[in-house]
C-alpha cells in the first residue's frame, strides 16, 4: 500500500433533506460544498459543534443517511472507487471489510438479544472465507488485542452483561477485525466516562499505529484532537471552515479570517496549563456570521440549481 495514497476523498459534497410541501419539493441544506480527504494511515479529526454535519458526512459515506436525505451534488471517492456510482452489491462487499464504523453509543450499537460471539462471527462470516473454528480463533485474538480479559467468556455473553467500556472495546475489535483501510469513528468516547475514555483512546491509537489504519475521527473534544490526530477539519453549519495539520490548526488559528471560529473554539477549551481561568464561550457574533454565510450560500445554490428552499426560520 502506497502510504501517500488517498483512502477517502470527498469533493464538493452538497447534501440536503428533501421534504414535500404541497406537491413541491422543499430542501433544507445540510452539507454545503464539503471537501475533505483522508490519506492512508492518517488520523483526521472532524471537529464541530452539534448540528455541524459531522455525523451526516459519515452517514452519507456509509449510505445510512436518514430517510429523505439526498445527495444533491458532489463526489465521494472511496478506496479508489467512485463510491456514489458503485453498485450496492459491490459497496456491501467493502462495507465492514475495507471501511468500518465505530459507532457513537456502545450501549445501543450491539443487538441486545444476541451473544457477542454471534455478532462478531456474523461480521467475519460476511467478509472472510473462514470456517467456524478459524472464526472463533480470530475473534479470541481480537478480543485479546483490545485487552479484554477472559475473551472465551465474553463471546458467550450478552451485551447487557458487559460494561460500556467493554462494549466499546468489542466494537473496536469488530471494526478492526477485517483489517479495514479506513475507520469512521463517530464520537466513539462520548458515551463513556472520562477514565474509560482515556483507556479506549489509548487502545485506539495503539491499534491504529499497529495496523496503519486511516481514521476519520469525529469529535467535539479538542483535547482528543491534539492527542490523537494528525490533521483536522473544522466544520460549522455544514461548511468546512478550515483544514490542516493539527499543529497548524492549533497554532496558526488567528492568522486567517476563516479561522475566527476555530480560535473561539480553542478559547472555549479547558486547559490544564491555565487552571482556574474562566472559559470564553464562543461569541454569538461568530456563529451568527457563519449562519448568515450559510444562508447566503443556500440562496445562491438554490438559484443556480433551481430548487425551492424550505421556509427559513
Amino acid at each position: 500500500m502506497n502510504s501517500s495514497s488517498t483512502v477517502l476523498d470527498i469533493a464538493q459534497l452538497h447534501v440536503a433533506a428533501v421534504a414535500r410541501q404541497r406537491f413541491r419539493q422543499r430542501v433544507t441544506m445540510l452539507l454545503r460544498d464539503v471537501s475533505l480527504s483522508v490519506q492512508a494511515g492518517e488520523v483526521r479529526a472532524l471537529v464541530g459543534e452539534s448540528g455541524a454535519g459531522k455525523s451526516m458526512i459519515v452517514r452519507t459515506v456509509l449510505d445510512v443517511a436518514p430517510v429523505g436525505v439526498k445527495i444533491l451534488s458532489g463526489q465521494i471517492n472511496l478506496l479508489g472507487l467512485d463510491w456514489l456510482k458503485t453498485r450496492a452489491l459491490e459497496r456491501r462487499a467493502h462495507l465492514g471489510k475495507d471501511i468500518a464504523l465505530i459507532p457513537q453509543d456502545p450501549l445501543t450499537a450491539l443487538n441486545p438479544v444476541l451473544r457477542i460471539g454471534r455478532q462478531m462471527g456474523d461480521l467475519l462470516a460476511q467478509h472472510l472465507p473462514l470456517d467456524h473454528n478459524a472464526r472463533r480463533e480470530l475473534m479470541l485474538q481480537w478480543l485479546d488485542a483490545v485487552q479484554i480479559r477472559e475473551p472465551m467468556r465474553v463471546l458467550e455473553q450478552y451485551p447487557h452483561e458487559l460494561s460500556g467500556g467493554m462494549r466499546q472495546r468489542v466494537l473496536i475489535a469488530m471494526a478492526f477485525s477485517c483489517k479495514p483501510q479506513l475507520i469512521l469513528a463517530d464520537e466513539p468516547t462520548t458515551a463513556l466516562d472520562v477514565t474509560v475514555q482515556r483507556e479506549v483512546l489509548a487502545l485506539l491509537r495503539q491499534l491504529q499505529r499497529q495496523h496503519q489504519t486511516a481514521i476519520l475521527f469525529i469529535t467535539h473534544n479538542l483535547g482528543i484532537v491534539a492527542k490523537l490526530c494528525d490533521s483536522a477539519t473544522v466544520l460549522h453549519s455544514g461548511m468546512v471552515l478550515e483544514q490542516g495539520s493539527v499543529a497548524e490548526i492549533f497554532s496558526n488559528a488567528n492568522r486567517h479570517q476563516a479561522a475566527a471560529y476555530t480560535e473561539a473554539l480553542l478559547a472555549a477549551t479547558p486547559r490544564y496549563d491555565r487552571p482556574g481561568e474562566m472559559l470564553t464561550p464562543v461569541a454569538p457574533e461568530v456563529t451568527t456570521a457563519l449562519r448568515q454565510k450559510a444562508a447566503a450560500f443556500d440562496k445562491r445554490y438554490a438559484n443556480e440549481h433551481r430548487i425551492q428552499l424550505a421556509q427559513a426560520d
Partner: protein
Amino acid sequence: MLTTLNPRIFFGCAVLLALVFTAVFAPWLAPHDPLTQDLLYGSLPPAWSVGGEPAYLFGTDTLGRDILSRLIFGAQPALIVAVAGAGLAAIIGVSLGLMAGFRGGWIDSSISRLVDVWMAFPAVLLSIVLVAILGAGLGSVVLAIAIIDWTRFCRVVRAETMQQAQLDYVVSARTIGFTGFQTLTREVLPNLWPLILTLFTLEMGIAIVVEAILSFVGLSVSSDMPTWGSLIRDGRLYVNQIPWLLGLPVLAIAITVLGLNALGDGLREALDPSVRV
C-alpha cells in the same frame, strides 16, 4: 431468562400439555368410541348422580354416545386448529409485517391499508362466509382462521419492526455490509421472537373459539368428528333436560382458552427484553 417460573406460565403450560396429551392419546384415554350410539342408554346423567351408570362417567347424550369420550376426542380438532391456524396466520402476518415495517414507503402504505380494510370486516361473519365458500372440513377452518387473523400479527410486528429499524444496531448491521434481508432475519427477527411467541399463544386460544363458533353454526368438520363446538350445538337443544351436555364442552373451551391466555401473558412478561436487558 425463566429462572423464576411465573405461576401463569406454569398454569398455561400445564393446560397446553394436558391438551396435547389428550389429543395425542385420545384413542387410548377414551373409555368408549365417541361415535357408537347406544339408544338404550340415551341421556344418562353423570355417574355420581341418581340413575347414572359407572361406565359413563359424564353420562351420555340423547343418542347414547359417551360424553367423556366425545370431549376427549374433541381435543384433537381443537389442537390441530389452534396450532395450524395460529401458525399459518403467524407466517402470513409476520412476513408482511416485517416487510411493511422495514421497507416503509408504498409497500408499508399498501400493506397497512390492506390490514385496515381487512379488520373492518366482522371476523365471525367473514369466517362463516369463508368456510361457506371453501367448503366444510378442518382444512378450511384452519385456512379461514389464518386468512382472518393474520392482521393481528401483521400490525404488531410492523410497529415493532419500525421501531427496531431505527435502532443503532440495525443501522450498524447495514454498515457492515448486511443486505436488507440479512438485517431482518439476523438482527430484527431475533428481537421479535418473544413478541411473536406471545401473540401465537393468544392466537391459539382465539383459534379454538373460532372453531367452536364455526362448529356451532354447523360449518366446521363433518358430524363424524366430535368437536367441542358441535357438542355445544347438540347440548343447546336439551339444555333444560341435560345441562351437563352443554356445560362440559363450554368448560373445556373455557379452561383451554384461559390457560393459553395466561401462558401468553406470562410469556410477555418473562420474555420482555426491557426486563431482561
